[in-house]
């Protein structure tokens, strides 16, 4: 592996930062150099959040360059499109098929893009787009807050990190009360991505 640049994008409150922490620590446990950084606005909830995770034998900048990201993991559809210009040609896009309309859309001042538009925006750079039903899957599992681990499960098939490293890291990072369900969400994500066809 030369290098892997990953973006994890979502909405404040969806658990993007914990997901990128887990990915970073898993990469470290696997012996890679890793840098990660989050860009988020001023408040706790509701704004756009994106984490940059860079894994290689030696990483310099913590921020990825536009046009060089290998994998985007988007917890929300609009956020997938928002950061699409970071993708390298042929990158992998894993997109939770779920919409959280911004307030401006609810107020009728702006329009939420349709599925086809979002797909077309991503298609400018890549055809490898995987839509997954993360929100409904984790709702079925019984805890909507495990979406982040579900999405990591999906992404784990594209990263050179062994499954037990992922699971150990998740176990270390989440409280024991909710460990089981988070691991279950991770497993579910791995299963889901195998069933998704391009």
């Amino acid at each position: 592996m030369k290098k892997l640049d990953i973006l994890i994008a979502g909405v404040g409150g969806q658990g993007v930062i914990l997901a990128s922490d887990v990915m970073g620590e898993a990469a470290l446990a696997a012996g890679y150099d890793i840098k990660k950084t989050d860009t988020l606005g001023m408040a706790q909830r509701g704004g756009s959040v994106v984490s940059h995770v860079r894994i290689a034998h030696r990483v310099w900048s913590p921020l990825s360059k536009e046009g060089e990201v290998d994998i985007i993991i988007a917890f929300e559809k609009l956020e997938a499109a928002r950061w699409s210009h970071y993708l390298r040609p042929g990158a992998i896009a894993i997109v939770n098929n779920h919409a959280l309309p911004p307030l401006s859309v609810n107020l009728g001042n702006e329009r939420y893009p349709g599925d086809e538009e979002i797909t077309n925006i991503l298609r400018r750079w890549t055809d490898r787009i995987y839509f997954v039903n993360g929100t409904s899957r984790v709702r079925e599992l019984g805890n909507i807050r495990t979406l982040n681990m579900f999405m990591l499960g999906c992404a784990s098939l594209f990263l050179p990190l062994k499954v037990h490293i992922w699971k150990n890291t998740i176990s270390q990072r989440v409280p024991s009360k909710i460990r089981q369900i988070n691991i279950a969400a991770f497993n579910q994500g791995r299963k889901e991505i195998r069933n998704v066809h391009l």
Partner: protein
Amino acid sequence: MAKVIKLLSGNEALALGAYHAGVRVAAAYPGTPSTEILESLARFKDIYAEWSTNEKVAMEVALGASYAGARSLVSMKHVGLNVASDPFMAASTTGVNAGMVVISADDPGIHSSQNEQDNRYYAKLAKVPMLEPSDSQEAYELMAYAFDISERFDTPVLVRTTTRISHSKSVVRVNRRRVAPVRQAGFQHDVEKYVMLPVYARLRRPLIEERLVRLADFAETFPLNQVLWGKHHLGVVTSGVAYQYAREVFPTASFLKLGMTYPLPQNLLRSFASQVDRMIVIEELAPFLQESIQAMGIKVTGKEFIPRIGELNSGIIERNSRTAGLLVETSARQTRIAPELPRRPPLLCPGCPHTGIFFVLSSIGRRLKLPGSKGKVPKEPKLIITGDIGCYTLGTYPPLCAMDTCACMGASIGQALGMEKAGIGDKVVAVIGDSTFLHAGITPLVNAVYNEGQITVIILDNRTTAMTGHQEHPGTGISAQGKETRAVELEQLVRGIGISDVKVVNAFDMKALRANVRSSIDSAELSVIIVRGACSVRVPKRTEPRTIDTEKCNQCGICLLIGCPAIQSENEQVYIDTALCVGDICTICQQLCPRQAIAPQSKIEVTKAP
């Protein structure tokens, strides 16, 4: 000692480095991107760590601890150093006893601040040494140097980070453990050093200049000022996170990487310059290094092609270096443009205790804009609302549009009085959070009492410092290290300075909010309204969410005007996202609905949202 390898943020690394360097007293006021430094230090139970009321106080606490023989640290965001600049300058003048380190976390790109400023100039102004880490490993290592330099040169040391250093995680090899402080706490009476009467301050003055000369000499061999030889066609002088970006853009160049950016190592710079064909400076924000190097008579460029505004990244440096002829065009890379999409700014949360009062102010001031209507606000605002720094500044955005100013911590009250004294006819209301009020709102309120102001001051008391991630403050009565202490009662405090019109209102009682705001703005007396309600993020138990009865709802859109993220609309139907609604603690939408169409989920026959 076996090496431990950790993934740490810059802030966590600074804290661990300080802990291992034997820090004993740490003080701070929360501020992005610096907050986690003190949060991390507070977890070590064998040191004293406090949230101070503001940065000035924090600086003074650290200075006192240093005088008394304890290594001390004070951390703050860039604008915090503006607040603390008075004791900072004083600390430079008196010098220290035990080591004292001041961390300033700048915010290039204004991710979460009211301005962009380059605090490296504070080192020059105060004539104190400055260190800058370029990743978490260096952040960890340089704290030991910082305390040593402080003691050896009798000076506070400024450690300057930026958002991208403070908030990036990278690998840290932890190779030290805590050195138990050897010296006992104790203060040595010494008026010539510690009492800055003019006569003694004049004695200190030449010592500061001598100190700088010795520091410049020390910088020549300081281990974190490193020359990394590559090819000699290009020499890059850089520091901080800019080094990481530059390393990526110029993989074959030679680097002079500065860990100490004030004072500069003149000989090292001259020698480096003489061994490269062309020398450039890559630095974020102002041409701080560049101008100093040029003043030495060394030929160097930098800001001619590197922006002086905002945060840098490898892409910006690459593009601009190409234009400047420093990089050969290798491939015709497509320029990437971000797609045009609806923006998603941060919002007040569902169940936020600020929402109700902003709705009231906005409707009394006739500022609300109906959904779908074009243009700005319907009429000229009737109330002037001066604002302050906190989550509540988000009340500026539509649909609430409930703020006219936001400048700096505590400014709302002084500005409100100034507007009143200028003679505008409209009533002026100042809106300020509890933590911000305690930080910098008390003195302007005393000023308003003394100078017979007639303003209304609304203190939004959500019992925490919410925006920076829920830190304790004097009003909560819990210390940074989790100890129960004495809480400062806001109503007693404002009554104590002579204000008689003081009301305390439940943040979720819309009728009471409206009535109390009305009576205060109609009165010609200085008044304070404390709007009290806990931050919804901290409310542990959520109760049954509200739902909209679609039979009763006529789509008037009033509930959308409170800007609650849980209230959404799809295909012309307004609905409440039950996963977001906090339930009984809020009910603002339920109170406002003119058709009583909003109720707990179980009270409505299931006519489910889309």
